[in-house]
C-alpha cells in the first residue's frame, strides 16, 4: 500500500509528457539521462521481473529497426560503400539506432506507468465520460482469465481422451482444436445467460451508472503538476533554441565534447526526478 496518494490524472499528465519527451529529445546526453533515470525508477518500483520479459522482444525489434532503416533509407551525406555500387549512409544508420533507442525508452516509460497507475485508476477517469466502455473493460478483465482457464481444462481432457487414439497428424489436431473451441463456446454461452440475468436482476441499466472509486485532488497533486509543467515548459523552450535535439540529415551536428550544461538540461533532469524522490521517500519509512 502506498502512502502518497496521487490522483490518476496527475500521473497521466506526467507520463504523457515523459513519453513525448522520449521522442522529442534525441541528443544522446538527454537520452542517456532519460534512460538512467527511468531504469532507476523501475528498479525502485520493483518491477524488473515483468520488465525483463517485455524487453526481450523489444530489443530484437530495436535491432531490426536499427538494421532495416539504413537498408531502406538512403538519405544523408556520408556514404559508406560496402561492395560495388552498393552503399549505406552513416546518417541513416545512426538514425536507426536513435529511433530504436527512443522506442525502448518509451517501453520503459510505459512499464513504469503500468505500475504507477492501476487499471482501476484508469477506469475511474474513463467511467465518468464513458460508463459503457468502462463496464466492458471490467467484464473483459473478469472473463478473459476465466475463459482461458476453461479452455485449459477442456484441452487437458481432450489430450487425455485422444492420447490412445491412433489418429495423429495436422488435420486431426485442427479437428480437435475446433472441438475444444466448440465446447468452450457452448459452455460459455450457456453460462453467460446467467451472467446477463444476474446483471439484470441487480438493476443494470435502471439508471445512469456511477462509480465506487473515489479520488481527491490533494496538495501533492497541485505541487506535482505545477512542478512538471514548469520543468516541461523550460525544456521545450530549450528545445526551440536547439538544446536537446540533434540534426541527423543531411549531416550530423553532434560531438561528444559538447556536454549541455545549461538550465534547459537541468530542467529536463528535474522533470525525471520527482517520482524517484517520492519512491525513495516511501522506502525510507520502512528502513
Amino acid at each position, binding site marked *: 500500500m502506498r502512502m502518497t496518494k496521487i490522483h490518476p490524472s496527475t500521473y497521466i499528465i506526467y507520463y504523457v509528457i515523459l513519453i513525448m519527451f522520449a521522442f522529442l529529445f534525441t541528443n544522446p546526453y538527454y537520452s542517456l539521462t532519460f534512460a538512467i533515470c527511468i531504469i532507476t525508477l523501475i528498479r525502485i518500483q520493483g518491477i524488473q521481473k515483468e520488465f525483463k520479459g517485455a524487453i526481450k522482444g523489444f530489443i530484437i525489434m530495436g535491432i531490426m529497426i536499427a538494421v532495416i532503416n539504413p537498408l531502406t533509407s538512403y538519405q544523408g551525406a556520408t556514404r559508406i560503400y560496402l561492395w560495388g555500387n552498393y552503399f549505406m549512409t552513416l546518417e541513416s544508420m545512426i538514425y536507426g539506432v536513435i529511433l530504436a533507442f527512443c522506442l525502448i525508452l518509451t517501453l520503459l516509460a510505459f512499464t513504469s506507468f503500468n505500475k504507477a497507475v492501476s487499471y482501476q485508476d484508469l477506469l475511474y477517469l474513463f467511467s465518468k465520460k464513458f460508463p459503457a466502455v468502462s463496464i466492458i473493460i471490467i467484464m473483459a478483465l473478469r472473463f478473459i482469465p476465466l475463459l482461458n482457464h476453461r479452455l485449459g481444462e477442456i484441452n487437458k481432457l481432450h489430450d487425455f481422451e485422444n492420447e490412445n487414439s491412433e489418429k495423429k497428424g495436422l488435420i486431426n489436431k485442427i479437428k480437435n482444436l475446433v472441438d475444444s473451441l*466448440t465446447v468452450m463456446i457452448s*459452455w460459455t454461452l450457456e453460462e453467460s445467460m446467467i451472467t446477463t440475468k444476474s*446483471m439484470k*436482476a*441487480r*438493476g443494470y441499466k*435502471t*439508471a445512469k451508472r*456511477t462509480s465506487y472509486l473515489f479520488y481527491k485532488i490533494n496538495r501533492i497533486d497541485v505541487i506535482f503538476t505545477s512542478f512538471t509543467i514548469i520543468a516541461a515548459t523550460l525544456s521545450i523552450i530549450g528545445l526551440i533554441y536547439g538544446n536537446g535535439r540533434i540534426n541527423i540529415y543531411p549531416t550530423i551536428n553532434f560531438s561528444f565534447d559538447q556536454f549541455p550544461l545549461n538550465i534547459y538540461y537541468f530542467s529536463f533532469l528535474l522533470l525525471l526526478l520527482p517520482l524517484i524522490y517520492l519512491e525513495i521517500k516511501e522506502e525510507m519509512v520502512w528502513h
Partner: protein
Amino acid sequence: MALVKFENFSFASSSKEILSNINLEVEEGDFILFCGPSGSGKTTLLSNVKKELVSPGEFEGKITFNSINIKNLDDKQSATDIGFLFQNPDSQIVTDTVIQEIAFPLENIGMPTEDIRNRIAEMAAFFCIDNILYKNVNELSGGQKQLVNLCSLLVLKPKLLLLDEPTSQLDPIASYDFLTILRRLNEEFSITIMMSEHSVDNIFPFVNKVIFLNKGSIKYSNYTQNIVQKAMKDEIFKFYLPDVSKVNFLLSEKYPKLKNEKIAVSVREGRKLLHKISNDLKTFQKKEKKLSNGNYPFSDNDELIKSNGLYFAYSKENIILKDVEFSLKQGEFLSIIGGNGAGKTTLIQLLAGLLKPIKGKVSRKKGIKISYLYQNPLIHFSKEKIKQELLLNNETELNNNVTDLLKFFNVEHLLDQNSYDCSGGEQQKIAIIKALIKKPDVLILDEPTKGLDPLSKYKLAKELQTLQKNGLTILMSSHDLSFIANYCSRCIMLFDGGIQVDNNPKEIFSENNFYTTFVNRLVKDYIPDGIIIDDIKEKWKL
C-alpha cells in the same frame, strides 16, 4: 398482510405447463424452503417473483409484492427490494474484483460514490470480508464467491431474498457457513427468504415453512414440524426429509411413547427424543479398531493404479500433494474426501493421467483403460444431438452395448435432444454412458453428486453399484458424506497434502465427531458405528 402473494398463478412456456394454479402467501420474516425433483418448477416459481427474470411464456393469475402486481413494480424498486441468487457461484459474477462486484448493483442504480462506500464498509464489517475486498474473484473459493454474491445483493437492502439452490455447488462446511449467514439475516433482520435446495439435513432446523413441489403444483405446504409426518409416506418426498426425521419416524413406529412428541428435524431434538426412550434402546460397544491396510482380500495382481512418492504443485510456494502413496484395487468403489483445496481433484487427475506429477510415479496396470468424468458434464459434449455424442468412430447407428446402457440408465428418450436441454442428472448420466462406451476398467468421477436432487442421486448410486458388481472399478472425489457412507467400499481422507486416513467408510465416520453423517451424530452414544439408516434398522430391529 402478506409480503408476497400468489393468486391462482399458472405459467406455461411453449405450450408446456410449468406451474399450475399456485396459491401461496409469504409473510414478512418467513424462511421458506422449496423442495422437489428437477423440473418440478422451483426455479420458475422463484424467478416469476423477480420481474427482470421472467422467461417468455403465458401466465394466468397474478403475483403481488406488498400488494403491488410484480409486473407493475418500478424497475429500481424491483432491483433493490428483491434479490435473486443463482446456483452457480461463478457465472453470476460480473466483474473482476470483490469490491467492484459488491459495488456493481449500487453503481447500476446511480448511487453517489460516498454512499456506495458507506454501504460497502458496512457489509465488509458485518461479513468479515475486508481482507478479501481487493482480491481477484478468480482466487476465491466457491463458498467465498457465493458469499460475495450474497453481499452484492444485500448492499441494496432487499426485503426479499430469492435463492435458487445456493449451496448445491459448495462443500458441506462452506454451505453450512452460508446457511448460518442466511439464518442470521432472517432472525436478526427479518429478511424474508424463499429458497430452493436439494440437501435438506442442514436446512430443516432453520426454516419455518417447507413447500414440496411436484410437476408444477404445490403438493404439501406446511410448517416444518408438521410436514414430515405427511411427506414420510410419499414415494418421492421421503427422499427430501432430513435423516434425523427419518430415524425419528422409524422409532415412533416401534415405540408408541414417541407418537405424541414433536418430530425432530435437528440433531439436538433427535437426541432429546432418544433420551426419552433410552431404557428401551439397546446400546452397543464399539468394536476394536481394525487395521486400515491389509485387510482387503487382494493380491498385488489386483492393483490397477498405484502411486509412489507422488508430488504435485503449480508453484514452489504451494505444494498441493506431498509424498502420496496410493493403490487402487480391482472392483473397489473408492471415494476421496477432504476439505476445500485439499487436492482431491488434483489427485484423481494425476491418477487418471490428465496431469503429470512433478516428482514420483503413477503406474497403471498394463492394458487397462481409464475413463475420466469432469465435474461439469457439459465439458464432454460438443455435438448437436445426444445420439451423435454416443457414436464411436465412423458408426452411423448405435451399437448394442450403447443401447443396453441407455436402457440401464433409463435415458433412451433423450437421444434426439441437445445435451444443454437436459437436466443436471440426465447430463451426468449421459456423460457416464459416454465414458462407459470405451469399456473402461476404471471409471474416475469428479464430484458426480454435485447439484443432483436426492432421487437422481439415489438412482445414480444404485446404477454405479450395479456397475461395480459387474466388475467396474470406480474412483470418485466427493463431499457427500451420506452418499459415501451408503455406497462406497473404501474411503480416503486427504489432509495436508497427503493421505491421512484410508479405511472403509464405517470405520472413518464412526471415529469422526464432526466430519460424519447426520445419522452418526444422532446415534453415536448408542450405536458408535451406525452411520447410515440401514445400520440402525439392523441393530435396533426397526
